[in-house]
């Protein structure tokens, strides 16, 4: 079974489960491989044991590490990247925002819009101020261009991934 891990910048890691061996109701052996550009670049056996209601994992069957109790997570985190987990399929329509599309990275409230439609803007210019978690975040432009469309107004409360502005090169 193929699993895709995709973060919000569309970085993708692909994994295959190539073997599942059930030793007992408490012990399973899996073989995973990591795939890049259709080539297997890494392969590893993982043992999983259920002990006192928790899962423990091991690469050698000797040293065991605990996994945090989880249901079926749709996300996994690695340090500063959050990956969405897609098992068995790769989602379509997840195409990345162009450099000229300003999308919210986290939910927040529009405090102040600093540009108008038709304005000439430069890369790195602050376009609007978004308040999230009691902090003001300056949202900067990714390219040089002209503001084509502003989709939000002052005071709007936005979810994550909302298109706020479009800039034309």
């Amino acid at each position: 079974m193929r699993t895709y891990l995709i973060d919000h910048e569309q970085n993708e890691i692909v994994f295959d489960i190539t073997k599942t061996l059930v030793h007992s109701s408490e012990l399973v052996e899996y073989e995973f491989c990591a795939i890049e550009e259709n080539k297997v670049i890494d392969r590893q056996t993982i043992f999983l044991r259920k002990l006192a209601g928790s899962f423990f994992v091991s690469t050698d069957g000797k040293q065991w590490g605990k996994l945090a109790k989880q249901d079926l997570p749709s996300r996994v985190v690695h340090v500063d990247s959050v990956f969405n987990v897609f098992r068995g399929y790769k989602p379509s329509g997840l195409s990345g925002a162009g450099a000229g599309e300003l999308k919210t990275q986290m939910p927040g409230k529009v405090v102040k819009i600093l540009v108008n439609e038709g304005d000439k803007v430069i890369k790195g210019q602050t376009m609007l101020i978004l308040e999230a978690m009691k902090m003001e975040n300056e949202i900067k432009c990714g390219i040089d261009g002209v503001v084509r469309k502003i989709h939000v107004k002052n005071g709007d409360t936005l979810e994550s991934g909302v298109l706020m502005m479009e800039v034309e090169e």
Partner: protein
Amino acid sequence: MSELRFLPKEKKRVLISNRGEIAIRIAKACRELGHTAVGIWTDNEPAAKHLEFCDEWVRLPGKTNAETYLNIPAIIKLCKESKIDAVHPGYGFLAERTEFAEALEKEKIVFIGPNSNAVKLMGDKATSKVLAKSVGVPVIPGSAEAVPSVAEAIKISNDIGYPVLLKAVAGGGGRGQRACFSEGEIKDHFEAVQRESQSAFGNGDLLVEKLILDPHHIEVQVLGDKKGNVYHFFERECSVQRRNQKIIEEAPSPFIGDDEKLRQEICTTAVKLAQAVKYDSAGTVEFIMGADRKFYFLEMNTRIQVEHPITEEITGVDLIICMIQAAFGEELGIPDQEWIHRTGHAIECRICAEDPITMLPAPGLVTGFDTNFPQGIRFDHCVYKNLDVTPDFDPMVGKLIAKGIVRDIAIRKMRSALKGLYIEGLKTNIPLHKVIMEDQVFIDGNYTTTYIKEHKPQDRVKKTKKYSRFYKLLAGIEAKRMGM
């Protein structure tokens, strides 16, 4: 049956007008004393973790903080409906709002905190500085009162010299302040800081003061009662900060170190100030200390602070319980100042839902949670599997506290505890704390408030993708799918 001392004479109904880990901490204290802990739930957090620790649950309708935890009339109404005897505000929200303390006083409801006059005198940074100066407590040069305009701010700054700090009169927790190194920077930031202050504290007034470079943030825990006694519980150093907000605190201060004379001086100065406002609860006097070991009064926080547990760990006192007892005019069980001792060293790491490198808030859903801690660890938190961390509230979800007989042992225990703290599904600053606990500058205890900015531990957070970590997580998912 023999009677225990230090038990309340009467069972009271205590409303906790807060949420998260501090609401849990307060609820536990209420239960220990035999009082009824009444918890609040709001429409944007109906599954609040703290309710689990409260005896009674009441609904405060509304989806925004302005409608709920910051809504004085609504909370007063709730108190009357639920026959509340006392309110504990925790930290943040209404904890330092004079209007709230006064409104409760008017309704003959006990405010678990200092008298409203002390909140008023200390709540305004400008008047608190004037007062401190008048009783001989050293203060930083700056504007005596709120600065009405950019022009005025620039005039004062030119007088006292750059760099200067723009800060909210009503601020706290490092929000609503900005360093300015030139006239131009004041022009750029004045409005933004005003806006931030208005939205965070409901008051956009700003102060200007001289900025001390490479400073240590050192604060003293004080506790007063209704008989006029004020005690101190030694100092905490809170110099590891990002965006002027603390992320790691420790007690005692490694900068003061063995200098018992300096420690005595700063602690008695704090007591002197607290006595001047007839302080009668738990509070914190914050100082800024330069490299020359001279200290200046910064502000007094007239509430329980986030980092109070490290003081509890080294002195053995239960500050929340003392606060409740002090509010009801009861005996604290402290004979005198000399009776208060400290042993060992305690460190606190604030666990926040944020990117460990950019340190920006990263809300999300906790998909998994587990702990495996060594001896000497305390974790005050509100984390559970399926907790949805929303942008409505502070990103701090817990406080990891390590206590050891000496500082190095506390650091060792903290390293082990961080390895045993599993929070899955969203970004946390645990990887950053791990780096700091291994960093020589931190280990030497030789850091100032510029530590994060200058030593950049965040740049040493390891990003290398180890496939084996993903394999292990995926194995867990597969096992769940197989119904194990």
